[in-house]
């Protein structure tokens, strides 16, 4: 193998959409950037999510909406982004909720309409008699996560950025108050600035330099069907599901209960003896039921796969995007479960923090790490964000609960 250059101006840990977008934005500025990924780019949540790009609650919302329609062109590779969303309600309560969200967006200048059942069925051919109405967003949308990940990666490489896969970072090296580099399975790499975007592992990696970032990992599941003829709007969901029809025609949907997992290790090695790090379960029966209710005219369509992904959540469910004051050459991100859609904007914000110390296009101050300074360390227990009470399984594989 040829001699590997073991330093970079900026090292990014994590090849999910957050790290990839950040590295791409930096490379666009001509920065010498190296992205280090423990597996394959996009292997984790970034390649396993619903593809939704409508995050009205985020300070990055406007930038998310501005950038997505341009991403194919900016990256030079297709992301399968499609605009608009339809959220179908099967109960009045759902409809009121969806309209409430529509109003929040309308107040920010985005247009939405409420459709009656007949209009809904005209727009959504698989809708049935059970639909009570829908909201139709003329903004927002969805993209194909797997294609987007690779688009970022290739665009980054086209600009001279380097990607090192199958290399796990085990710790951060700080000397005299500054990050000097990282320790990895391939030895030490040096940098002037470090961007941490390691998803569920972000907290454990920061702990190696004594900085506390609270995150709790959880597992969520999705199902996908065989292709159906394309609907006018791909982003149709509702009835407690999120998801989309892919451009190929498949229905890909998730939602429902998540399972909290134990804290993860810094390098993300699966827990000892784990059969599968992201198992899916019989929840696929429940997802199938919800999807059949959403699209009664698609009951015959076959489910061909299911999968699970791991998401980290901060205590308030909001991202952390922050350049620390000490060490001040370290920028930290966790997107807390809403990171795919926001990724074009997140990368821009991270670029700004690294290059200029401040986000140029919006205030992100409320996403700083400092908000958790006084958080009790047993916050997961207090919030009930803990794995199911199963302590162990007996030799029959039956759950042994240590319930008081």
């Amino acid at each position, binding site marked *: 193998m040829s001699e590997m250059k073991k330093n970079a101006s900026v090292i990014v840990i994590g090849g999910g959409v957050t790290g990839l977008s950040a590295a791409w934005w930096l490379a666009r500025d001509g920065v010498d950037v190296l992205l280090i990924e423990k597996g394959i780019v996009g292997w984790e949540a970034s390649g396993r999510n619903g593809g939704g790009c409508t995050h009205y609650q985020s300070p990055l919302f406007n930038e998310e909406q501005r950038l997505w329609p341009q991403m194919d062109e900016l990256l030079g590779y297709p992301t399968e982004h499609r605009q608009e969303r339809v959220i179908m309600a099967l109960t009045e309560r759902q409809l009121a909720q969806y309209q409430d969200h529509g109003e929040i967006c309308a107040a920010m200048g985005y247009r939405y309409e409420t459709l009656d059942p007949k209009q809904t069925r005209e727009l959504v051919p698989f809708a049935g008699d059970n639909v009570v109405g829908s909201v139709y967003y003329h903004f927002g949308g969805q993209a194909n996560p797997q294609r987007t990940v690779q688009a970022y990666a290739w665009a980054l490489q086209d600009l001279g950025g380097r990607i090192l896969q199958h290399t796990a970072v085990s710790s951060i090296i700080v000397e005299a108050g500054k990050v000097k580099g990282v320790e990895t399975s391939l030895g030490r790499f040096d940098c002037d600035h470090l961007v941490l975007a390691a998803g569920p592992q972000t907290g454990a990696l920061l702990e190696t330099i004594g900085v506390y970032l609270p995150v709790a990992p959880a597992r969520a599941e999705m199902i996908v069907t065989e292709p159906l003829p394309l609907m006018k709007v791909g982003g149709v969901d509702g009835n407690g599901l999120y998801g989309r029809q892919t451009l190929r025609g498949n229905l890909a949907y998730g939602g429902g209960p998540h399972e909290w997992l134990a804290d993860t290790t810094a390098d993300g090695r699966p827990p000892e003896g784990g059969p*599968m790090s992201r198992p899916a379960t019989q929840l696929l029966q429940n997802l199938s039921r919800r999807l059949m209710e959403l699209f009664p005219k698609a009951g015959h369509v076959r489910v061909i796969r299911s999968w699970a992904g791991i998401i980290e959540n901060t205590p308030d469910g909001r991202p952390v995007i922050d350049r620390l004051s000490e060490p001040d050459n370290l920028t930290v991100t966790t997107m807390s479960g809403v990171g795919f859609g926001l990724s074009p904007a997140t990368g821009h914000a991270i670029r700004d923090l690294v290059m200029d110390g401040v986000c140029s296009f919006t205030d992100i101050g409320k996403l700083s790490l400092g908000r958790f300074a006084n958080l009790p360390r047993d916050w997961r227990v207090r919030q009930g964000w803990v794995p199911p009470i199963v302590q162990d399984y007996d030799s029959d594989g039956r759950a042994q609960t240590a319930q008081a």
Partner: protein
Amino acid sequence: MEDEDVVSDFHAIGEKHTKADEHAEIVVIGAGAAGLAAAITAAKAGAQVMLVDENPLGAGLIGMDVPLLFGNRWTAAVQNQGRMLEQVLTANPGLEEAFELGIDVKLGTYAWGAFTGGPNLRSLPEPVVGLADETRSWIVGFRRLIIATGARDLVYAFKGFETPGVVGALGLTALIQTYASFNGQRIVILGTGDLAVATATMALDAGYDVAALVEVRDTPQADVSALIARGVEIVTGHAILEALGNAEGVTAALLAPVAGGETRSIACDTICLAVGAVPVIDLADVAGAKIARNEAGAFVPGKLPAGVFVTGDAAGLGTDAAAAGVAAATAALASLGHDVQASAVPSEATALPADTDAYRMDWMRALMTTGGQDVIACSCEEVSRRDLLDVQPPRYLAAPTDKHNSLKQLAEDGPVSQDQIKRLTRACMGPCQARRCREQVAMIMAIGTDRPLGSIALAGYRAPVRPLPLGVLAAASETPGMVEGWNVWFGIRTQWIPYDDIGTEREAERAGRMAHF
């Protein structure tokens, strides 16, 4: 910590999984030689046994080549479930003994998933298997699961591959022996190894014509003298170039010499792929088995979750399946504390020749040399050999790219995994769940990256391991806790508060309203 501060997350899975609809002490999946022997052994030892087999398959799955390559060469009889059920019972006399022993035999029943608890799956109250018939799905709790899912066809595509009449050796055998519904007469068989010879002999014995066996190597790979004596032609040094045919199906096999030269065609209505077979490991993989390659080059379950056993062809081809089934049942019974006589451990003898990989790769190379790169490798998603080698985006995007355009380049970034190629090209992502292209895609990847076949990481299997309709898989209902706690995304109220409201008095009011159900 004050207890009153502690809340529970009622949106989390907790104990909300659908409870098992029924239970069995030992569930056996697959009523082939291994599964049947396992079930009978277990029942005789006094265990409570459920034996599940998907035969007779619904016409929908047969039409999708699931689980075998049936190649649209069946008579309308397969659509008659009742008649097929009788046929399956006639073809598999051991089932009668199973019924007599009081085994809960479930025919026409698919096992679409098996789930066992572990570090990242603590919500399962017990290990379960998911079953379905043509109308509904349900959950069965088990103490021991014996997976005896057998083997499926190793498939290579070639021009005209989708013409009715291109079948696999196991698909053909099932159509002739299990279903008595084969709708062909004159067969050309691809391959000359043990599987090809056995398939030819079976077809001849059943009264069909075998026109020829075709081999890309220069010599037959097994003893073909008996077949020659029965009038079968052996064509060596040739690959299949094309299945010629019309709307009715295949009319001839067009063959090309591997070394170049004149093509020739042999009239037939059926072309049967008999180069090899592959253990069916989908259910074991989903159940949490670690999958590893065995010496014969097949991916088989290695380390298994507690309570799960894999036996027969599913554990690796070439063993005495019935003996293996007895051994698996004996191990399962012993682990349950039943009094059992240790049964003879089945011989490890693998009947597969040591150069299985090389032989399969010889076929792939010969097909590519003679047929070129513009042949579709994945029919469901229409991905050609060239698309794979060039890592092209799928056709529906109409966005071919000339950048980063080869498997070789991708390999420079690290070991190439089949899951990654799936994501980029969509090969193996279709409704047949990659049964027709999985091994072929791996071989093309090995060729494209110039690496040994064994170094190509296998794509994982996912539930449901049979492509079943939404309406069948749909749970009858949600558990009460699930209905109440269902949320589109975690149900963290603070997550959805508009940024500008954070830290204002509107925040609390918003939090009261924010729930994405």
